[in-house]
């Protein structure tokens, strides 16, 4: 079983602050982390490998610093790490991102055929959730999004049983291997990394590829050039008028609010219990 997990380096949006006056991001405040969903994706690969054996590779596209998220993935339990890094990838939208990642996957599978690809449900910065299904289409394997459980992996039959989250409830899906999953956070809990993993991660040197290391790449499909979408403009949403401020002491404000609520009979009604 060879599982490839796609991992992205993202700014920690929990810590990032915006300057309320200029409406810009204060990037200094945001350290780069492994996309939290991707940590769960690596963890799930580790859980699967415990049952099936095999190899876990992680793949990332990003600047040279993104090796940090590969090391983090090795800590969680990945065996191999690949980073594709090249100026030609810069400015990619989801279409160009899935193209570049699928080309790297093509090269990885030459050495060791890929049985499963796992992605996060979405990256917390771009937040589209579109890259996973895009990769699956390019590799021509079934995408299964919003996965909350990998119930069974049958290596003989080359099938998997998957629980996929829906708006209300879930569905149980059987899929052929290879396939691509995108995972929700609830799929597992991140476990503490065992000491040997930490030591391995500290010393690990990821394999780094530029565009020229990949085969059959159409350069026009990469980066900004290969991206049909562009960010047109950024704006602060029109400020709504806002409503009425209730004035006075705390008691006065509360009783005014109660009056308003009582007037709105269609909103709030007191039913006699008898």
């Amino acid at each position: 079983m060879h599982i490839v997990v796609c991992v992205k380096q993202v700014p920690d949006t929990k810590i990032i602050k915006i300057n309320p006056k200029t409406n810009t991001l204060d990037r200094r405040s945001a350290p780069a982390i492994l996309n939290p969903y991707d940590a769960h994706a690596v963890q799930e690969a580790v859980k699967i490998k415990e049952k099936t054996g095999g190899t876990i590779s992680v793949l990332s596209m990003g600047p040279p610093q993104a090796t940090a998220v590969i090391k983090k993935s090795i800590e969680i339990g990945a065996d191999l790490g690949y980073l594709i890094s090249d100026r030609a990838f810069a400015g990619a939208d989801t279409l160009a991102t899935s193209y570049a990642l699928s080309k790297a996957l093509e090269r990885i599978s030459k050495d060791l055929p890929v049985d499963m690809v796992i992605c996060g449900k979405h990256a917390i910065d771009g937040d589209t959730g579109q890259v996973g299904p895009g990769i699956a289409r390019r590799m021509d394997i079934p995408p299964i999004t919003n996965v909350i459980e990998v119930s069974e992996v049958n290596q003989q039959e080359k099938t998997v049983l998957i629980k996929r989250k829906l708006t209300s409830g879930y569905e149980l899906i059987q899929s052929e291997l290879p396939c691509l999953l995108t995972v929700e956070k609830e799929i597992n809990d991140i476990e503490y990394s065992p000491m040997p993993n930490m030591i391995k991660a500290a010393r690990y040197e990821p394999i780094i590829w530029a565009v020229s290391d990949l085969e059959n790449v159409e350069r026009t499909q990469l980066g900004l050039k290969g991206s049909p979408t562009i960010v047109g403009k950024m704006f602060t949403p029109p400020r709504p008028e806002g409503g009425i401020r209730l004035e006075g002491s705390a008691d006065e404000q509360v009783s005014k609010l109660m009056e308003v609520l009582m007037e709105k009979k269609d909103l709030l009604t007191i039913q006699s219990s008898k």
Partner: protein
Amino acid sequence: MNLDDYRGVWIFIEQNDGKIEGVSLELLGAGRKLADKLQVPLSGFLLGSEIKSLANQVITYGADQVYMVDHPVLKNYRTESYMKGVMLLAEKYKPEIILYGATPNGKDLASAVATDLNTGLTADTTMLDVDVDNRLLEASRPAFGGNIMATILCKKHRPQMATVRPKVMKALEPDTARLGKIIEEKISLKEEDMRTKVLRIVNDVTKKANLADAHVIVCGGKGMGDLQNFQLIHELADTIGASVGGTRDVVEAGWLPHEQQVGQTGETVTPKIYFAIGLSGAIQHVVGMKNSEFIIAINKDPNAPIFDVATYGIVGDAMEIIPKLIEQFKQLRTEKGGEISYA
């Protein structure tokens, strides 16, 4: 690609078990405006098995035409079979705009179709417009990090596609007198060719659904200070029979489970009354609740952005205001001798 070959606004009509999803009807409302501006027909397209009876509903909600692909293999949603249907329609009729609900299936389908059509897809849109001069779809979404929106454009590829968050657009009032055309398209699909099978669908109406359907929500933010103070939110909700919601910061602090998060990465809610207490009103929160009928904000900072969307605002300390509110509601209940409920 000749952009002028592409005309018309299309809406993916998502149905599950023969029932059309609310977001698809909302998109017909939003799509109607775009189509009128561009002076082109608005079409709904519908895939499934034995779905013919749904076509009329699509027309009453604003469509001029309905494209239908009806096949037993399309009974349950699967990326592979559904995308074949969409590709068939899109390549034959060449719409200039296609909108999908940003539901699990809608996002899955749109992402796959965009890849095969080699076109752009804007994710989780909350504002839609068109520039009539160059026929560009302006799909805007909250941008990472703060109170900023980004308008995403797709200038050189067609169709222009976007997924749109449920409950942010408004459906039209259904008009049974509306007339429209129904166009059926044949597709050849074989079950044996499918690499995935849906073995079972389990509907569980958990807390999550509760929040989405709640008539009254009391939502607390990080300003409640700690888990113990956050109990005031639960107490107020209990008193008036409301559901409890929280901001992302509250969920991350572990005060509430993720199912109760309201906002961009949580639930979108439209209750009759929404109490927003001790929360600042960041855009990612506001997109999930701004269509509530009646919003009451309580915040000690008079400049908190939440006051811009609130119907009524109280500037004050939540720890002082909430107990007073609870007391008033309890008193009311004893006076009237009944339960508080909502129309």
